């Protein structure tokens, strides 16, 4: 059974990559190829509202007559922006702090770790929710809110790597030859910490999309006329009993994208760190 699962994962992984690649390409191209491109910028057409999926509107239309296919595909760009934005910001803040913590004195390390513990003590969505509510609802503020809440995980990963690497022989030799703390970080710790950070980043990308969709759903994320899957879901709320397609397709794309990121993350882990892939 497990061997079946592993072989299935290997077949699906390229599909996940293709799906994400296609999503990026189509979400960028949709304003130029869709005949309903104006819907992306807030145009409404009530005379064609609430139509089910058809050859004209593949994913149907919402109550305001907007083409759901165009909106759902374009919303992928916002969601991917969140995914990459959150991972990039979290790494940018977390990794340098973590590496510094790992090579610093015990006292500095303790201070940094207790601060990160304070961030980690919040339940997962509470801190992004507070930050986004304080900064005002927008997609950029969602990215900031989630990143501030998630960067401590990267601090921990980078610190753990730094603690291992700083005690290796080649680092000791480098130190004995007069290398400074920042030289060791730049030349030895950073290149050797990249793998776990990249794997964590890939896995987090999917969860960032979920968190952003959650914040948009409660009105703190993207705002009309922006399109984002969580926003499309919340806009479908009052109608979903009659118009199932309004919520189904954005929901489906959230699921597919998150699964794709997770599969890619898992595959990367297997590929870059084969020793960790042991059957449980």
């Amino acid at each position, binding site marked *: 059974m497990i061997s079946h699962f592993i072989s299935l994962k290997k077949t699906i992984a390229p599909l996940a990559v293709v799906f994400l690649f296609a999503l990026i390409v189509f979400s960028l191209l949709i304003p130029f190829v869709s005949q309903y491109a104006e819907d992306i910028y807030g*145009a409404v057409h009530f005379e064609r509202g609430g139509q089910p999926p058809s050859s004209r509107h593949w994913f149907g239309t919402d109550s305001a007559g907007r083409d759901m296919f165009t909106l759902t595909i374009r919303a992928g760009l916002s969601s991917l922006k969140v995914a990459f934005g959150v991972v990039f910001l979290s790494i940018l803040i977390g990794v340098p702090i973590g590496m510094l913590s790992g090579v610093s004195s015990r006292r500095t390390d303790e201070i940094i770790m207790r601060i990160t513990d304070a961030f980690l003590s919040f339940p997962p969505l509470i801190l992004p929710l507070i930050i986004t509510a304080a900064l005002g609802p927008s997609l950029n503020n969602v990215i900031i809110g989630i990143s501030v809440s998630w960067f401590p995980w990267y601090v921990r990963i980078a610190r753990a790597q730094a603690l291992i690497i700083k005690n290796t022989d080649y680092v000791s030799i480098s130190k004995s030859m007069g290398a400074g703390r920042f030289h060791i970080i730049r030349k030895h710790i950073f290149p050797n910490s990249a793998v776990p950070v990249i794997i964590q980043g890939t896995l987090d990308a999917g969860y960032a999309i979920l968190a952003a969709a959650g914040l948009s759903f409660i009105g703190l994320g993207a705002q009309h006329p922006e399109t984002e899957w969580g926003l499309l879901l919340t806009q479908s709320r009052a109608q979903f*009993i009659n118009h199932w397609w309004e919520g189904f397709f954005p929901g489906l794309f959230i699921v597919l994208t998150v699964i794709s990121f997770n599969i890619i993350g898992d595959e990367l882990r297997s590929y870059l760190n084969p020793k960790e892939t042991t059957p449980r």
Partner: protein
Amino acid sequence: MTKVCNEIVVMGVISLTVLMSISCYHQKKPEDVFVIATYDDVKDWDPGTAFSLEVLPMSNIYEPLLWYDAGSVPPKLLPALATSYSKSADGLTWEFYLREGVWFHDGIAFDSKAVKFVVDRNKRLYGGASFIWSAVDSVSTNGPHKVIFNLSKPVPLDKVVSSQYGAWIYSPGIQGVSADSLRQGYASGTGPYKLKKWSKNKYILLEDYKEYWGGWNRDDHFRSVLIKVVSEASTRLQMIESGLADYSFLIPVQLLDRLKKNPSISVSYHPSWINHFYLLNTKKAPTNNIWVRRAIAAGMDRETVSRYIYGDSGDEAKGLIPANMPLFEAPDSLVSYDQEMGKKFISRSRVGLNDLKLDLSYISTSEEYRLTSFLWMDNLKKIGLDLDLKPGLWSSNWERAKNLDTAPNIISMAWWPTLSSPSDWFFGLYSTEETPLFNLSHYSNSSVDSLLSEAWHQESFSSDSSKKLYKTIQNILIKDCVAVPVVDINVQSVYKSNITGLRSNPAYSTLLIYFLGRPS
């Protein structure tokens, strides 16, 4: 593989069990319990200050001296706790003769002292709708069943005592109730139902008051009323579909077609005194420029809004107050939807393109406001105005709009009157206020203030002259472009088809359960 199959079978059995338990939960409720699914809870249990959704339970617990029957043609005042009344020729003294043999739910007798107590207390509390008593100088009693109101200026007091808020007569026993008990849920009126239990943000349970003065002559009346707070519209819809509710409030218009096909559910619309409109901030840039305000008004496509967004539940507005309101006369004109005109207004405003950014806050829980705002935003973009939408809960929108520093340029509004008079809109929304309460356009015009005062006083003597004055006020407000009217609401009634006795009275945004029944 066998193990996996076994697991699947076990999971299937568990899922089936769960589904069966859920379906068993849909038990039949007793026939003499009336269940209402509504969208929000009571915030204030003090009948002297309650001024919002409290009207639903309170209008079944408390009664006024008179009822205003707006459903009859022409509208008339019906006896409630007062059986008759008279006024002096100068309109300054009013005498009300009170019903005998009436008792409050707490066992205290209803008499003239109770009426005096209520009016004096409401005036002293100075909250909610206490403003309705502002013309009352003093209240005196003449025996247990006659009460005399002395006014400082003539106003139609019969309309005041039949107000939707602030006119409920409650037991003087409230004096002995602590503030904490009041917060926990307290009520003692003379109405057909009394409060049995309240679970905050969950439900209100009422039970029939056996000693009600009106009697319980029908055998199909409801012995208990359960008002359930259900914030999600789709859940309210499912409750009425499944039979868990007998009446559901505020089902989105787009979902009603589904209910109309269900023979066990009735959907009907009744004209109301509720209207939806937007207030334009007259103090904040760029809407402090009258030409920008006119351009905004020219972007409102009322026809599309009424046709596609509100459907049967809203008629295109013809003025700043609902067209079916007594003393309404259509204003000379409204700014109509015209993009070219909008562009001309913009160029006359001489406001730079970069300064033509506006924000609009609307009630996020309303599908109608959301869609109307989307349409307006699209139309204004074509005119050259950049609209930023700010959905939010009414309470937070309202708080921000009161303060000029945080106020939006445009705010969505729904209004239903306290008093059965057009003055209610104009006093509440457009009269000068030092600290804005509902004047969220921050508008001030001394001629409107004095015309309004005059029109209200005239109501007690001459309907024609007050009608003309209200029209003049509307014309001024439309010329100043303080508000953009959208639709007059037809209230929906969504209820089980076996319910009888539903009555429509635009003067009260409530449901009088005493008249309802479920014939066996």
